[in-house]
């Protein structure tokens, strides 16, 4: 075939060899480090928040509604006053809000797979888990935003925790670390399911009961014995207790340790599992 490109179309501006020039002028950079690749994927996550903010809204609306409804409808009945109940429920809603957001890590990954972007990433000479690690790191920003929304709303409603700013920040960090661990569960689910919507449904079907059957809304002592036992064993209860403790300045190292340990365990099991599924998918 002829080696001379023809100018039959408007791909390049008339009269100049921009196309040929663009092809031959490519840079030849060195392969990026694993960290740099992860950060680039994290940056991609930020761009997605910028371009698809409604995704973040979706997940924060439910906890915000819960915060308002539970505080004003049930606050008086459950805790004697709405103000009292707000202080009880807010750390729990923070946990709920952030954990719901983790489902999107799986949804995003599944979208990448179904749309074919993953093929491009997998054909690049980069550290193979980088797209996954970077995406989950980028999602941490999402978790912080979701958490901040809840805290700001709480402050507006009169939430004044004893632990002050350091307590709230510490609680938020703890929840984010836990979410980082939980996100790996959903990235695994994201690679196993066929469509983004299926991932979302599966995620919420699992998270709704597991967050409700915790101490987010009520003290476990008021529950029947068998349920109380379940709620006490639920890692989310420990995370909520730890967050309450941090916000109220009375943190319990045991609960914090339990929450961090759970996050570490989830990461240790599901991060390699996700990576394996990602690498071996046909």
């Amino acid at each position, binding site marked *: 075939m002829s080696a001379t490109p023809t100018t039959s179309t408007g791909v390049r501006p008339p009269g100049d060899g921009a196309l040929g*020039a663009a*092809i031959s002028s490519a840079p030849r950079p060195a*392969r990026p480090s694993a960290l*740099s690749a992860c950060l*680039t994927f994290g940056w991609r996550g930020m761009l997605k928040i910028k371009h698809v903010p409604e995704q973040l809204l979706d997940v924060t609306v439910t906890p915000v509604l819960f915060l308002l409804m539970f505080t004003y409808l049930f606050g008086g009945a459950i805790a004697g006053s709405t103000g009292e109940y707000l202080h009880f429920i807010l750390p729990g809603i923070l946990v709920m809000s952030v954990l719901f957001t983790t489902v999107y890590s799986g949804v995003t990954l599944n979208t990448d797979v*179904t749309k074919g972007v993953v093929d491009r990433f997998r*054909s690049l000479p*980069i550290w193979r888990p980088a797209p996954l690690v970077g995406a989950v790191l980028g999602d941490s920003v999402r978790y912080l935003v979701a958490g901040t929304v809840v805290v700001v709303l709480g402050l507006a409603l009169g939430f004044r925790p004893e632990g002050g700013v350091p307590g709230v920040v510490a609680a938020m960090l703890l929840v984010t670390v836990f979410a980082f661990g939980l996100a790996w569960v959903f990235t695994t689910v994201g690679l196993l399911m066929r469509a983004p919507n299926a991932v979302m449904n599966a995620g919420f079907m699992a998270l709704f009961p597991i967050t409700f059957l915790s101490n987010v809304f009520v003290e476990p002592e008021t529950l029947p014995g068998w349920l109380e036992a379940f709620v006490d064993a639920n890692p989310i209860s420990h995370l909520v207790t730890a967050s309450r403790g941090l916000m109220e300045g009375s943190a319990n190292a045991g609960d914090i340790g339990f929450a961090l340990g759970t996050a570490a365990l989830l990461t240790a099991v599901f991060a390699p599992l996700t990576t394996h599924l990602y690498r071996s998918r046909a």
Partner: protein
Amino acid sequence: MLAIEASDLVKSFGSTRAVDGVDLAVRAGSVYGMLGPNGAGKTTTIRMLATLIRPDSGNARVLGHDVVAEADAVRAQMSLTGQLASVDEDLTGRENLVLIGRLLGCSRAQSKARATELLDAFGLGDAAGRQVKNYSGGMRRRLDIAASIVVTPELMFLDEPTTGLDPRSRNQVWDIIRALAAQGTTVLLCTQYLDEADQLADGIAVIDQGKVIAEGTPGQLKASVGRGALHVRLLDPEHRPEAERVLSRALGAGVHRDADPAGLSAACPPDPQRAAEAIAELSRNGIAIADFSLGQPSLDEVFLALTGHPAEEAIDDGGSGSDQAEVAA
């Protein structure tokens, strides 16, 4: 030197042998076409060569490196433009290219400059700041190819780059492929269109049901198939029986009556001169013709000639089968 050497590649999905012993030898610097219908195993072959899936058996070396044992070395020198446009729809065109630049190790400034250069060269300058989900099919495909040459690869895999594009966009993509080839990049091109392979490729392998059933230059391939068909449309349908006699005598071949009452077609002789004489013979006999054409053989005709069955048959058996199932799986 060979850019791609594959021997006896096999890949099954469940009970379907999507690729069933493919051998390929692609010379460095050439454009090589893999021609076949949906489900023939083209995509699976490309995905094995591009290190996305492991062959069940057989082996392949791409640019001198084994695709399984030295996958990273292969990845460093090739790029893939998949059947699905592998760009991020939520991001803008510019962001997509900057992302790839960064992932290939370019500095931030370098990535931005390169993105601008490519967007302008590919006629996407005006759309650079728009989200890709608002792009047309042709724009998306061009962006996809641009993403593949942020760093010019030694070897480029293109999986049906023009399927679903309008003629203008198709020509644009062809121009880009020609420019890449002119610069020295080896291109492995999967296509369902014989004319695409004919336009671009130096060598063609015809693939059917996971096997290479014919190989050669476009010229050799077409010669083995014939030149497609000669179609004639008469001004007056009344003349058809006579025209049929004249044509079959001039061509020395059977003439087929089309559904169109004024239409006739015949397998074209290897020498186009004879077709021209046959047309002249019609005029000499006072038979007026409305128009005539010498058709390129279609993929169907190639398949019919090579395998004795039309191309569609391959689509049925797991058809969206091997090629698409694995994309979705």
